[in-house]
């Protein structure tokens, strides 16, 4: 207690020296804490991304090349230009004309069947699946929304008056309770609701806002699809003209309306853990045959998303280590310099009858005080700074992966709105790195401070032991 009081008094009475040490060390510890926090946030986000992205295996008819709506019966190469994520080039929607038990061929487009789904469901590690079929509305009752290119666009003069009419895309899904499960990440139900679980075969639809507006539809209205009356139960918006020109139906309803009983255009298979994704994908390929189904995982997507984040995490880790080393170096050098500056003081104390341990104790506690104050300041600085540093470390926080894409420009019916290929939306993931600084940071700060103080004890202990009062007081 006595030594504690001496240490506090020595610091208090030499405020400039103390403030300088606290300042330099505070910056260093603060940087280390920020890097620890940011590193933790990056790791957490990477895990989240992996859990969101990495547990889905997408199974589509062979030749449909990954994500996006597959427009059954489309002609020739899909125009799919602008749509789709990196995993979803809208390739030619022409499947192999096989007559496999698991596929049907109709109008040149292969589809999967429920038999394939059952086979997939029996594979180990498969935790669930979502089936979808996609169609283009071809009736007369509904009119799609239109879009006009900018006046200076090279296409401006080639479009009909009133602009380009966006195809109405229809998706049937057996997982309608959350539209986000379809990859429409930013979907927002603006009125009504989505499907209920007991409406698997009901003639109900959730339609996009553009489609509703173009046709004057509101919740509760009905419209015809292939001579069947369908009720609008909800209207959604995605914030894009293309996305808002689609409609969603329960899978069995869509199958009935488009005469596609037992068919599936895409299966999103949920694997129990991210580690089992690759093995499960291989098992599906083996079960269905690679000439029947294209089986894609989102490892590539995950890699694409996580690469900048992983780089940033590496940078933050290096920064953290560098900052910790710098902190240790700063405190060691500071203590060494201070001890050297105070050699006469040490000599006087020893001449007055202070033991080595009393002097070392005082200097150690002084160092501990400085380190703790610096750590608290560093911890407090972490709160406002960590997010900024994290944003700075992520090279492109606005990178977009997947999500709604635009339909192909003028390729006719082959153009498609491309949704994210998986169960989970992956759009704009990097922008969501949220660095939440918790009060635990003070625990880390304290641990660092005490660690540094402990390290810094070595110097005064060694130095004080060597100081001979007769020598240091001799040359006055």
């Amino acid at each position, binding site marked *: 207690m006595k030594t504690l009081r*001496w240490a506090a008094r020595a610091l208090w009475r030499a405020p400039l020296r103390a403030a300088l040490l606290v300042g330099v060390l505070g910056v260093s510890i603060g940087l280390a804490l920020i890097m620890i926090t940011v590193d933790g946030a990056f790791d957490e986000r990477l895990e989240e991304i992996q859990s969101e992205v990495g547990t889905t295996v997408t199974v589509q008819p062979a030749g449909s090349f990954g994500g996006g709506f597959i427009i059954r019966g489309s002609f020739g190469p899909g125009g799919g230009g602008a749509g789709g994520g990196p995993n979803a080039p809208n390739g030619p929607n022409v499947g192999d004309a096989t007559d496999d038990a698991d596929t049907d061929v109709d109008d040149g487009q292969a589809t999967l069947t429920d038999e394939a789904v059952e086979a997939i469901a029996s594979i180990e590690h498969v935790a669930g699946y979502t089936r979808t079929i996609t169609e283009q509305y071809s009736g007369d009752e509904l009119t799609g929304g239109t879009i006009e290119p900018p006046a200076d666009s090279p296409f401006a003069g080639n479009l009909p008056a009133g602009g380009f009419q966006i195809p109405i895309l229809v998706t049937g899904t057996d997982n309608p309770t959350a539209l986000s499960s379809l990859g429409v990440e930013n979907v927002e139900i603006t009125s009504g609701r989505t499907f209920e679980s007991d409406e698997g075969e009901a003639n109900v639809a959730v339609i996009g806002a553009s489609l509703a507006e173009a046709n004057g539809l509101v919740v509760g209205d009905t419209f015809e699809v292939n001579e069947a009356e369908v009720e609008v139960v909800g209207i959604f918006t995605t914030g894009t003209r293309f996305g808002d020109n689609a409609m969603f139906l329960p899978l069995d309803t869509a199958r009935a309306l488009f005469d596609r009983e037992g068919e599936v255009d895409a299966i999103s298979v949920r694997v129990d853990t991210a580690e089992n994704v690759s093995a499960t994908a291989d098992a599906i390929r083996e079960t269905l045959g690679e000439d029947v189904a294209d089986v894609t995982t989102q490892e590539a997507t995950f890699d694409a998303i996580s690469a900048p984040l992983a780089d940033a995490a590496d940078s933050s880790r290096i920064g953290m280590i560098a900052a910790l080393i710098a902190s240790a170096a700063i405190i060691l050098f500071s203590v060494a310099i201070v001890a050297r500056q105070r050699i006469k003081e040490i000599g*006087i104390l020893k*001449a*007055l*009858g202070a*033991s080595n341990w009393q002097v070392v104790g005082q200097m150690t506690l002084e160092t501990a005080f400085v380190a703790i104050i610096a750590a608290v300041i560093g911890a407090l600085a972490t709160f406002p700074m960590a997010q900024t540093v994290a944003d700075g470390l992520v090279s492109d926080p606005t990178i977009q992966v997947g999500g709604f894409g635009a339909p192909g420009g003028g390729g006719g019916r082959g153009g498609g709105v491309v949704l994210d290929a998986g169960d989970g939306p992956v759009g704009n993931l990097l922008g969501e790195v949220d660095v939440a600084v918790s009060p635990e940071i003070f625990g880390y700060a304290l641990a660092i401070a005490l660690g540094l103080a402990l390290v810094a004890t070595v110097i005064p202990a060694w130095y004080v032991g060597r100081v001979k009062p007769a020598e240091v007081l001799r040359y006055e």
Partner: protein
Amino acid sequence: MSNAAIATNAGAAVLEDVVKHFKSGSDTVRAVDGVSVAIPRGKLVALKGPSGCGKSTLLNLLGALDRPDSGSITVDGADITGLSGAAEVAYRRDKVGFVFQMFNLMPYLSAIENVTLPMELRGELNAQGRWTLAESLLERVKLAPDHHRRRPSRLSGGEQQRVAIARALANDPPLILADEPTANLDSTTGEQIVRLLRSLASGDRTVLIATHDTVIARQADLVITMRDGKLVGRDGGSPGS
């Protein structure tokens, strides 16, 4: 003087054939070269000689700030030659009080805090007791009361030396060692300090002053003269070695 004679004549301190050499490059400096002397108890003793003659080294040996290469030193009846560790610390704390040429006060402590410091190291008195004793010691060395809470930087040289003397008295040691205590003071202040030290030398308390100032030496009960590490003269008191 024989060992037996020294022991019989045991005063505040007895040195017998004390040697302390230093290495300076390839040369050996014979700072203290076979000194034997008895310092009488309760006297003001001046250790006189030119700079570099070994006065300070002898004081350091007596204060256990340094160890002799050979010989023995007995202070207050106890051999301090082989002291180490806690015993050495306790000796410095309880048996000797130092007064340095440059005062050597703690710059970040006030005058009174400098005086309480040895008491804190000893740990016997509570804060109030230390404070009261320090006040009385500062009064004794005639430091103005309104200067008690000043830091050394706001005290004159003479005042700082008074504080240093009060600090040396803090634990009531039997031996006060003053190394050129007036060297950095003007003559008037120096005389005051010497008078103060003179007043302290009585009863069981011995004051040993290292100085090259003959005026100061003249006020001592005993003057011991050193040259080149050896004792070359003794003036006053009983005959020494």
